[in-house]
């Protein structure tokens, strides 16, 4: 009798154990599935926080304290909505954005999108190398040493590395953005105040405030990122069955990007804004100003964050641009081709890096004008790209059951139009305002 009870007890414990084991295995399997897909969304969103972006966030915190933090939540949504469509297209069609534009809209539209893309991205690359130069000057390294070394590093990384290795390095670079978290903590901000301003919108009718808001949106959502995101999902060979994991990756990326922005704004708000140093116009100056206010570490970490972000974006932009252009126009592209087979690809890639780094080294380079050009270019290019995305993602013959739902379409069009209007305002002010506009 006792034996029987004991036996059944053991049996039930065994089945429970087996059940737990099975569930754990299920969890592990799901986690592995997720990890196999994660990367593109996280990397793309974080690359958004590049040299130009960090400058804008710095100014936002320095000039307006915590009062702009509320805009981060709608921006996260906008980032997610637009990136998700590209991720979905990549996963479902298995083709890059430039491929789809070419196949559905023909040669000429593709050509003009690609040519604009080239010049806009070139201006962006210049901005990234300028970021490297500025950050290294804080560490007392001359730009004539720092920039060529950075350009070489970028070149070697991409030419010698495989997609997997490069992705691991990029994911590691994403982690390094945490330096801004530490920097913010060292700045001893009013956390409660920051939290309050994050949740409660605070819209002011002051023109400088509105302009800063526009700049925040304009720098966070750059057109080239859509091409990169979609291409990485295609290159990673993520299929429709892994769409949910891909979407999780995009959500996680959008949120983590905004978390970093939050800490940068908090850091500068707690120091520069509080101590009335509100006319700081770029991230490198901010890092220097932080040293007396929040200690050497806070400033160093801030500068390090800038260096990381600039290098990170400088490695992705030229490669992504060369890829996108060659794919759209039908030239051989990709690092697994030899130089002879993919001449145009390698030339574009090299020109972007050499010209990008070279301009920064010119003694009296018009860096300011190039920054404005990159911003204006992004502003002109963005509406075109977003409209192409929306048209493509609604094509049932391409997307099948994965076309936008009505609700998603409404959200997407509202987001797109809001983004387009804001960037056009920013473009207009960058072009016609006398005062130096925020860089991006």
């Amino acid at each position, binding site marked *: 009798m006792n034996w029987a009870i004991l036996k059944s007890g053991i049996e039930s414990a065994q089945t429970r154990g087996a059940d737990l084991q099975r569930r754990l295995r299920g969890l592990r399997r799901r986690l592995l599935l997720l990890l196999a897909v994660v990367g593109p969304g996280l990397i793309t969103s974080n690359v958004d926080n590049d040299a130009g972006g960090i400058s804008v966030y710095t100014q936002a915190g320095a000039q307006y304290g915590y009062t702009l933090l509320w805009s981060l939540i709608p921006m996260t949504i906008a980032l997610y909505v637009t990136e998700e469509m590209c991720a979905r297209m990549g996963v479902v069609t298995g083709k890059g954005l430039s491929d789809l534009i070419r196949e559905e809209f023909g040669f000429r539209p593709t050509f003009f999108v690609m040519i604009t893309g080239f010049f806009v991205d070139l201006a962006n690359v210049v901005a990234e190398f300028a970021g490297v130069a500025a950050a290294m000057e804080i560490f007392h390294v001359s730009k004539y040493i720092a920039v060529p070394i950075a350009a070489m590093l970028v070149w070697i990384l991409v030419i010698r590395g495989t997609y997997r290795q490069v992705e691991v390095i990029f994911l590691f670079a994403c982690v390094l953005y945490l330096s801004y978290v530490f920097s913010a903590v060292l700045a001893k901000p009013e956390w409660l105040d920051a939290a309050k301003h994050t949740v409660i919108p605070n819209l002011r009718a002051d023109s400088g405030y509105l302009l800063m808001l526009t700049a925040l949106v304009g720098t966070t959502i750059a057109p080239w990122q859509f091409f990169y995101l979609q291409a990485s999902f295609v290159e990673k060979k993520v299929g*429709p069955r892994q769409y949910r994991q891909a979407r999780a990756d995009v959500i996680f990326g959008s949120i983590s990007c905004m978390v970093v922005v939050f800490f940068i704004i908090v850091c500068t708000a707690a120091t520069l804004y509080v101590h009335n140093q509100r006319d700081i116009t770029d991230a490198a100056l901010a890092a220097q100003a932080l040293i007396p206010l929040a200690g050497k570490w806070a400033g160093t970490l801030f500068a390090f964050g800038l260096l990381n972000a600039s290098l990170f974006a400088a490695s992705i932009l030229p490669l992504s641009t060369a890829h996108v252009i060659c794919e759209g126009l*039908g030239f051989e592209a990709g690092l697994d081709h030899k130089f002879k087979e993919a001449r145009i690809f390698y030339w574009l890639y090299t020109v972007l890096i050499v010209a990008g780094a070279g301009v920064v080294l010119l003694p009296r380079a018009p860096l300011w004008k190039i920054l404005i050009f990159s911003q204006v270019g992004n502003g002109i290019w963005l509406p075109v790209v977003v409209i192409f995305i929306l048209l493509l993602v609604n094509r049932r013959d391409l997307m099948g059951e994965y076309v936008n739902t009505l609700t998603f379409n409404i959200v997407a069009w509202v987001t797109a139009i809001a983004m387009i209007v804001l960037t056009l305002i920013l473009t207009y002010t960058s072009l016609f305002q006398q005062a130096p506009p925020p860089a991006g």
Partner: protein
Amino acid sequence: MELYATELMGVKTYDVQGNYVGRVREFFIEPAEAPNRISHFLLSRGHFQPLVAKHDQIASISSEKMQLNVSERALELYQPNESWLAVQKDLLDQQIIDTRGRKVVRVNDLDLTQLRTNGNVELRLTQVDVGLPGAVRRLLQGVVPWAVVRKLQTKLPQSYIRWEFVNLIEPDPLRRVKLRITHEKLEDLHPADLAEIMEELSASERQSIIASLDEETAAAVLGELDARLTTQIVEELDPEKAADILEEMAPDAAADVLADLSKETSEELLHEMPGREAEEVRELMEFDAATAGGMMNPEFVFVSESSTREEVLEWLRKQDQSFDQLDTIVLLDSKAQYSGAVPVVRILLAGPEDRMDTLKMEPLLSLPPEAGEKEVFQCFDKYNLRMLTVVDKENRPIGTIAVDDVVSRLVKN
């Protein structure tokens, strides 16, 4: 004279009385009739319904005008037809497979040649332009005079594919039949080349190619393809077809594919496979992929150690199998235990009466199925092996690992 598809788009058309009919907006090939002849021209007339001119109604054609040899009333109204291949919609800007260059390329333009017969002129598609001249033409057509474009393009590096070597990609199986698209040309490619081509295509295109290949070729291609893609393709295939393909694969490769699928799918497929093959694959799936057991192929050639060269050759000749990949034979003793391995070259050079055990390699090497892949790699490296035998606890051979398995593992790591 040569003409280009781009130049013909928008050309004004006149009928036999010299009346203006409309502009050419599209033209079609009807592959069921002739594989490269332009069979129909679509003529748009503003808001009137478009007309269609047939190939035998064309008197002359140039990049400036098209002259019909009938009056406008003889033309039919345009009806969409699935069995016509539309040059603009289905070819320009789309990806095709260059079966000779073994790669996927994008069509920039098409080259046409004129063929004069009694009362009309026919256009034949000769080659596909995938290079700069086509791109420049597409960009400048209508903006710059065509004479200038023609002059410019002669200075550019050219890149063409003859129409015979073009393999179209059409995901819809019904349309594929209507357009007479076969993948015979693809079956002639090496599976590794075909796998590389497939990696550049979209998911539905890959699916359509695999579905149309014979099982043997499909199995060879899946074996060469990136593991993620293989999983995606097998998941989407009809289970019966998938099981047929898996059956054609080497058991170790099939086990690798099945191990990546969900439990339900792999069970379903194993159920569809014949009992013996399924059993072999099931046994292999028990082993961890990163061990000798996970790498081995359970199908190998073994003979008795006491047999002579002549007996072995006689036996090999009788087998209904290809031994192209065979380079080592496993020897068994009287207790069916592993006694050694003989390279085929030694058999080749031996006398007809030489016994197998006199030819075997020293030292006697084998690994248990639990041995890690690192141990396998070291063993191959140290003894310069081309094949290694895996034995169970009773020292009975259960499979062999070939050097190509080792190489592909190393490349993947």
